[in-house]
């Protein structure tokens, strides 16, 4: 029994039950590994490989193919800004640039307090609500820097409240 099997037994079982082949569960399992380790770490890859009866190298190649698995540690809030054409027509490139400048990060970089990672992402299928970003897989739409600053403060406050509690 590895860490994932111990801590996420129910979710793993439900996932495996969907498919005639264990290998099909690899994508869902990688999400669970990312949730547990904060990124798809070597331990996470190993755990997933054991559950899916795959070679860790194969699991690693799947993790590397998709943009939603992070192959290195990220900030607590992973901000992925869409800068594709429809969003860019509505000022998303400037928004993306201003956000990085405000947080003092380069593309793909993480703010000094370890809170925010910013990167651009391909079309998020909500082009009528541009500019928008995805934060830890939830969309925030019709953004500008004013609204963004409010959100950033709110997220910071949530984390600080959690830290103070524990």
């Amino acid at each position, binding site marked *: 029994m590895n860490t994932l099997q111990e801590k996420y037994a129910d979710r793993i079982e439900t996932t495996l039950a*969907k*498919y*005639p*082949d264990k*290998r*099909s*569960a*690899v*994508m*869902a399992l*990688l*999400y669970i590994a990312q949730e547990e380790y904060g990124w798809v*770490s*070597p331990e996470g890859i190993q755990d997933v490989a054991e559950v*899916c009866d*795959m070679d860790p190298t194969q699991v690693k*190649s*799947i993790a590397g*193919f*998709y*943009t*939603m*698995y992070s*192959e*290195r540690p990220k900030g607590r809030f992973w901000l992925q800004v869409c800068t*594709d*054409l*429809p969003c*860019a*027509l*509505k000022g998303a490139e400037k928004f993306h*640039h201003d956000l990085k400048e405000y947080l003092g990060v*380069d*593309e*793909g*970089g993480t703010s000094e307090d370890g809170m925010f990672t910013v*990167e651009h*992402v*391909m*079309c*998020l*299928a*909500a*082009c*009528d609500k*541009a500019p928008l970003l*995805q934060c830890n*897989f*939830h*969309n925030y739409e019709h953004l500008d820097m004013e609204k963004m600053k409010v959100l950033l403060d709110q997220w910071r406050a949530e984390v600080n409240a959690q830290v103070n509690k524990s």
Partner: protein
Amino acid sequence: MSLNIIFREKDIPNIREFDVYSKNGGYEALKKALSQTRKQVIDEVKASNLRGRGGAGFPTGVKWSFIPQDNPINYVVVNADESETGTFKDRQIMENNPHQMIEGALICAYAIKAAAVYIYLRGEFWDVAHALDAEIARARKAGLFGPNGKLKDADGNPFKVDIFTHLGAGAYICGEETALLNSIEGKLGQPRVRPPFPANKGGGLYNEPTVVNNVETLANVPWIINNGAEEYKKIGVGSSSGTKIFCLSGHVKNPGNYELPFGVTFRQLLYDYGGGPLNGGEFKAILPSGGSGPILRVTDEVLDTPLTYDDLRKFNSILGSASVIVMDDTVDIVWVASKVTKFFKHESCGKCTPCREGTYWLDKVLDRILAGGGKESDVDLIMSVAKNMQPTTLCAFGEFAANPTIWTINVFPEEFKAWVDGSKKPAEEKAVARPARERVAAAAAPAGD
């Protein structure tokens, strides 16, 4: 003009909920289909002229008829990967009227004798997928399908097909049906060599015959079964029957999804529904099918063209998924070509050399032009690279990825000319804001992970 076959939430609030959907005729089409023979159901869908709404426009009933009925295990896969730049209709269907898609998928499952339905959602539809799972669970619990399904088909056999969602993780190519199948199987999401096709033994999911249909396509099916093919054909024009959801984005006052009968014109879509140009500019260009379809120069002739699968061909363009991106006269077309090419460069799966390398070269040359270093020969160079990508890849991605450059050059040659003859120069800021920061970030990543 308003007829909501799919966006029924406009007429019936909260139809996304199982109880509300059921009270408003929900799942009656499934029961009606089950009372008929499989052949009758397929013939009805064939007769309706329903064509694939994902972009290819292939006749849906014909696709269903390819599946061998004597095979013990067949599959239905719903393509909810919606990743084309400018496309956001399937999201709205699944958020606001998910059961109609589920019902359509179940009718297909009955018609092709499927063992299970898999709905492949792009990973970014994380919230959509979780809400969908909850609605599927409600319908399953009500005994409509799944291991405890209470319905019976025309021969008295219990209907026990089950439905599962599968979440992708961010890869445009998984919208290509064979890449999508690989992705469900836990392999790299790269297209397969065809034949065998998904409908053939050896070509579908887990090697079994499989129908892959788009969300919007399947959401039309319950209406067709309830009202009949003849009624459906009264909506739309010619071989483009029914309604289409147009995803309108870019420089219009009212971007959004508009469900309209085929045959509506660009003028109606852009002005009557879209509210005209944003910021009072003039419309200059339209990408009618997201990033992958050939661009159009806005003229009166284009504006008055009926939007059907056939009519856009006269401009060498396609209706595709009807993801209409509109640009006003402030837009630089070479920048548009570069922007869309960067998308395809990022999303190329890397399997076929012409596409993997070609998208890099196109991007490089376009960057050079936009940095002010373009040469007159660069336009021919781009054309040569792009045209070598088109006939040489396993899937349609190579063709799509070459379209933005080929067609911007064909339709707006003067814009490229201005850049390469030196009459147009980059703004100071843009020239410095273009370093390849991705590489810097990658180099800074911890080694050995």
